[in-house]
């Protein structure tokens, strides 16, 4: 497909209403897998985190991970869902080499959580409510590495390598109800929803939520309705969307692609598409001649799960303050304007600032550091703010040193640079790079004398009452001390020295 076959976005919005459905898979960060005692950890040498159960060996049986069920219920509660009083696992039957049993133990018509919603804040502060259809438990598959062939997919590969370390890792699949009426903001809503979900799950400490590592994966269903039409159009499901930005790009791309086809009198093929990060397009997967029939039936190897209401309420009590509640409280506590709050949220700095404040810093100083200097550093270092190696406690220490006069703002930035470069914590960087403010008067006096001697005419002017001329000497001293002197103190010493 060439770009000529895409419709201009403004025209898309003029002629069609987009409908979204987002399916997010979240790998839980439990210690062990969903149905066995193998470690649940990312990576590892291939096929080292495996046992008869997660390899689907003949005779092996699953046992449900209680912590995963707890996480599922907590996630359901945080998404304002009803929690099933009784539910079962089901087998989803299909053949694929990286699925050890050739069925996935999942949930079908009896999800553990259903009928919820998540309020999502857009960039301009508008709040959109996304309805949640269901959240259910299932197990992850292994990973296939297809070697040879052009596409990196199984079709056309020379051979494939299988790694079952991921097989059986607990997953929660969260499915939205159709998201309608968003118009041109649909792609942004999709990104904001996944962002909100990520922040929520991170705050709950139930998942690593790393899209780059696949611990949070989003499948975006997109369809278009002609303006005024009552029925949803045919949808496509786009997979391989591996960043928040890609969620927005993939939705937007599909909207423009669908629109071009529809406007040309064509029809959309219901299919799975793969997002291609490099050019922001989507490509059709291998089309199946027949619809997949998963032959779901209740998993006979597991007993039903019937969470008591007492247990559910106990779990509800363990849910921490959620991101939007926290935002509201922080705005009130710190007396922030909407714009200031938005800066915090949009830079992803809110939790970092809060942690810095918890470590003893003033909120205005903490905000300034994270939203401005550190945010610039993250951009120039091409990383996320949260992934910078500096910790909130270290930022608080730097702020403390500035407050006590031991660092100037300029020095403080150098200290922070040192921490970011991996030279250790702020005190170690100061030590290593000799960055402390020179507060030793004798050392400063020597520099002052030297500067006065070098510019006798200026010294005379000061002596003659032109105090503002001292600026030139201050500058010379600062230069000589490589900026490590406290300029105000230097000024005092100059005036003392010339006897003005």
């Amino acid at each position, binding site marked *: 497909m060439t770009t000529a076959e895409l419709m201009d976005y403004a025209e898309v919005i003029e002629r069609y209403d987009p409908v979204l459905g987002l399916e997010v898979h979240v790998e839980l960060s439990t210690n062990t897998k969903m149905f066995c005692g193998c470690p649940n950890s990312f990576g590892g040498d291939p096929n080292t985190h495996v046992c*008869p159960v997660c*390899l*689907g*060996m*003949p*005779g*092996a*049986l*699953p*046992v*449900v991970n209680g912590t995963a069920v707890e996480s599922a219920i907590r996630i359901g509660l945080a998404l304002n869902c009803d929690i099933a009083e009784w539910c079962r696992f089901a*087998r989803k*039957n299909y*053949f694929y*080499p990286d699925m*050890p*049993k*050739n*069925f996935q133990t999942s949930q079908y018509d009896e999800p553990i959580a259903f009928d919820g919603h998540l309020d999502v804040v857009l960039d301009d502060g508008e709040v959109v409510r996304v309805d949640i259809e269901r959240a259910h438990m299932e197990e992850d598959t292994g990973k296939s590495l297809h070697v040879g062939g052009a596409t990196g997919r*199984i079709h056309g590969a020379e051979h*494939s390598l*299988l790694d079952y370390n991921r097989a059986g890792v607990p997953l929660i699949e969260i499915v939205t109800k159709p998201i309608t009426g968003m118009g041109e903001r649909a792609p942004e809503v999709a990104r904001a929803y996944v962002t909100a979900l990520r922040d929520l799950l991170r705050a709950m400490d139930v998942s690593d939520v790393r899209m780059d590592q696949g611990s949070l994966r989003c499948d975006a269903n997109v369809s278009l309705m002609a303006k005024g039409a009552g029925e949803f159009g045919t949808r496509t499901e786009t997979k391989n969307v591996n960043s928040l930005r890609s969620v927005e790009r993939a939705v937007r791309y599909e909207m423009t692609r669908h629109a071009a086809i529809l406007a040309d009198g064509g029809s959309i093929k219901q299919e799975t598409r793969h997002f291609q990060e490099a050019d922001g397009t989507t490509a059709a997967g291998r089309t199946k001649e027949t619809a997949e*029939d998963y*032959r*779901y*039936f209740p998993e*006979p*190897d*597991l*007993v039903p799960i019937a969470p008591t209401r007492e247990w559910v309420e106990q779990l509800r009590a363990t849910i921490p303050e959620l991101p939007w509640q926290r935002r509201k409280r922080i705005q009130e506590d710190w007396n922030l304007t909407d714009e200031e709050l938005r800066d915090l949220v949009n830079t992803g700095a809110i939790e970092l600032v809060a942690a810095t404040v918890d470590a003893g810093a003033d909120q205005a100083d903490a905000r300034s550091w994270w939203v401005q200097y550190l945010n610039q550093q993250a951009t120039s270092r091409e990383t996320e703010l949260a992934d910078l190696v500096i910790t909130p406690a270290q930022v608080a220490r730097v702020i403390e040193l500035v407050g006590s006069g031991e660092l100037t703002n300029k020095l403080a930035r150098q200290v922070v640079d040192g921490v970011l470069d991996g030279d250790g914590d702020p005190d170690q960087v100061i030590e290593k790079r000799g960055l402390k403010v020179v507060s030793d008067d004798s050392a400063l006096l020597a520099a002052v004398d030297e500067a006065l001697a070098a510019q006798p005419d200026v010294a005379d002017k000061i002596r003659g009452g032109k105090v503002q001329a001292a600026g030139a000497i201050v500058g010379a001293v600062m230069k000589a001390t490589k900026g490590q002197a406290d300029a105000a103190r230097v000024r005092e010493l100059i005036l003392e020295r010339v006897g003005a």
Partner: protein
Amino acid sequence: MSDLTRLTAAELADKIHAGEVSAAETTQAHLDRIAAVDGDVHAFLHVDAEGALEAARAVDADIAAGTAPASPLAGVPLALKDVLTTRGVPTTCGSRTLEGWLPPYDATVTRRLREAGVPILGKTNMDEFAMGSSTENSAYGPTRNPWDLDRIPGGSGGGSSASLAAYEAPLAIGTDTGGSIRQPAAVTATVGVKPTYGGVSRYGLVAFSSSLDQAGPCGRTVLDAALLHEVIAGHDPMDATSIDAPVPAVVDAAREGARGDLSGVKIGVVRELSGEGYQGGVLRSFEAAVAQLKELGAEVVEVSCPNFTYALPAYYLIAPSECSSNLARFDAMRYGLRVADDGNHSAEEVMSLTREEGFGAEVKRRVMLGTYALSSGYYDAYYGSAQKVRTLITRDFAAAFEQVDVLVSPTTPVTPFKLGEKVDDPLAMYLNDICSIPANLAGNAAMSVPSGLSDEDGLPVGLQIMAPALADDRLYRVGAAYETARGPVLDKLGELEAAK
């Protein structure tokens, strides 16, 4: 023939623990017997002489050291159905697809036997993946009935029952999905028990139909079965469907029953499990057994379980449905047979060709039946309806057990037929399980105990006793009382053999 092979397990245990004979010579005697007769009987697929003798010698070392035996059956050898995994010892399930597979782990039943000091003589023949009533579906050739080598030993556990009847082993383990312990016991004049579902762990039992499969003890006497029952039963955290409750005191019940008093026991004769299709000699043997139970003091009444009529069709929807999913894992990717792996076939083709070659006709028939029954659009009519029938049958049992303590019926409608007689008529073959299937569908406990020989063909007949879930002890009490009154049946085979 060594005398040791003619003793019961209880007698052997007494002699071994008293130091009169060693476990090693007991095991060797049975290995010798296997070497002498198994060429004709073909009860074993694999004999593990080395492993069995090693286990026996460990028991002898304990006894020599004055250590208490590991269990009441320590040193008494056993034949294990080839559907339970044995670490490092071949486990084929009677299928070509698992030829040469060495499981990396022991089934829980296997582990408990090892911990109890029970030497495992080898793995017994069976219908492929436990699907059949004659062992003719074994990929490795049929087992023959010691009563008449031209006749079937029952199935699927014909190897286990034949090994007992041929005095190759004093104890055996079977598994029972629709009668695979009880029907072979009936046609070889041995004792077989299907414990309450969840009473014995299924971990390591290669699944045919997960909601129906249950491993259980086989012996030549009710007491021997009870001793074995207590070794293998009990809660297992590796099996989510395992019942977390004390094991019923079946050995005590067997000893009490052997005193021959059933006064106060109420027994129900199931009206629906007799009549048309039942061999005359079988019905007459059953009537004699009922008369004998009355003589023992039991009160006998007729009860009706109207939904038992639908048990067979319901079973042939549920069991194939689950099997179609359970057997999906045999795909050549991780273990077992792999064909067409020549670089010219795709993974999908290798899977398909391997399954084509690795599975026999009956397995394919059931996989196809189950795949169809679970298909979208057919699920409700087939699998869904069958589950409703299952509920109705469970209610029939519950209502009957309000009136009586145990239910009785013939175990099978006919005596053992000739090899080859029914191989081309699956429906006739399926009818063998018409009496045994209801207990599997409801999950309650049932036993087959020899009730003599049919007066028209001189072949064994079994009496089936059925008890409520978790009341397995009632089977043993009634079974032992009847056995004592009836007298040994298998001895007649010994007489026949001696007369040759």
